[in-house]
């Protein structure tokens, strides 16, 4: 199970074992890490699971699909390394990945 490091906006860190095949969003929500709302439960319908992926890892992720890109366009504080965490599927390749939370999802 890959370990993912989630860093809250406050700087508080959580290292979580996330099962392969789960999304980065699920890894956070099911482990009580604050900062991701994911109102739609992972359907890429609400843009409330926005995160920043450490630049070192961005290249290892599957590219964004159109829907994620367009939803992301309307999130707050979007940067080049922004992603919707419900659309990042966890694989062994992502062992050690660092994810940072934005200040707010709304």
């Amino acid at each position, binding site marked *: 199970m890959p370990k993912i490091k989630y860093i809250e906006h406050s700087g508080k860190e959580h290292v979580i074992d996330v099962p392969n095949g789960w999304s980065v969003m*699920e890894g956070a929500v*099911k482990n*009580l890490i604050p900062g991701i709302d994911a109102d739609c439960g992972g*359907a890429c319908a*609400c*843009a409330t699971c926005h995160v920043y992926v450490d630049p070192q890892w961005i290249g290892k992720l599957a590219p964004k699909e159109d829907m994620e890109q*367009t*939803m992301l366009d*309307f999130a707050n504080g979007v940067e080049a390394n922004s992603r919707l965490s419900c659309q990042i599927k966890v694989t062994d390749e992502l062992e050690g990945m660092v994810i940072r939370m934005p200040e707010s999802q709304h």
Partner: protein
Amino acid sequence: MAGSETSGAAVIIGAGQAGAQAAQSLRTEGFKGPIVMIGDEAYPPYQRPPLSKKFLAGELEEERLFLRPQAFYDEAKITLRLNTRATAIDREAHTVSLEGGEKLTYAKLLIATGTRVRRLTCPGSHLKGICDLRNIDDVRRIQPEFTPGKRMVIVGGGYIGLEVAAVAVKRGLKVTVLEMADRVMARAVSETLSRYYEDFHRKAGVDLRLGEPVAAVEGDDHVRAVATASGPIPADLVLVGIGVIPNVELAAEAGLACDNGILVDEHARTADPDVFAAGDCTNHPCAIAGRRLRLESVQNAIEQAKAAAAGMAGKPRVYAEVPWFWSDQYELKMQIAGLAEPGDTQILRGDPASGKFAVFYLRGGVVAAVESVNAAPEFMMGRQMIAKHLAVAPDRLADVNIPMKQLIS
């Protein structure tokens, strides 16, 4: 009740999306008393939307449906009483009776009982092989029959029926959808979207029949066919998706006013200051629509539950979000914001043939609602336009060469 607003217990009847959100929000709002959540299913609170999509398709394990792990409820000191049914509310005594006779005392009560499915009433509607799709156990009953080559007749061309049709036809079942109205999802979307989805389903191989109600279900013990005016349609499995009925009985028997849902105010509170209600079971004043209504959606459950929890914790807050909805069928993502009314002017933006388009609804020149298909910018900006009561020139809205962001600035 004497004492402070937050010293007694909060009891939540219903362990769905609204109940779970309220329990969580009660803690974030600083509610210190015990929280007890009563659910009549065997499972901790879970997401329903994937049931008719990825869960039915076998692409999502049961555990991933659960909104929160058990550890969350333990840490937040939220007691889950699963497999438990509430039988009565005594508002005078501030108690909720459970099946078996136990009574729970509340300082604040939330009714989040949701809805139940409407059932067929035609001859043969008792036969085996007729299924609903509302909860995990329903899907478990469908799955053994949900195999390639099986003949599935779906009664009702609404969200549930069409989402299941999309999954079923992809799985290799032979799918017939019977809709009694002259178009699918007639209650929820414009004719433009109905026709687009009808075409898409037919091209995918669904035998979609409009204006064709069910006359009877035929069979001895197990369903064999579904009869309509044009003859019997052989069936191994029948799925009924003809709408839901709000579970208002507990509230009504406790003397709370109900009219297509439990009547609450904009703070999700009933006429009893200690009793709140949230989610699909409520009839609430909607600021956006300017009238009372009942919504069936995840967003309504979440946001109304947050408002209810705030009120239960002694910090009343108004619930006045722009309603939004989504539906996944095939590779089509439908997203809807706002509430359309008859008489609104419809503006089409984008060519449906391109696979990406939206229908905007203008009321007095102001954006009142938007329905989008694979068109997130239209949905996301549409939501903001609705919230801001923005007026837009119809010709500019219809012009896809003008980006949505420019329309709002």
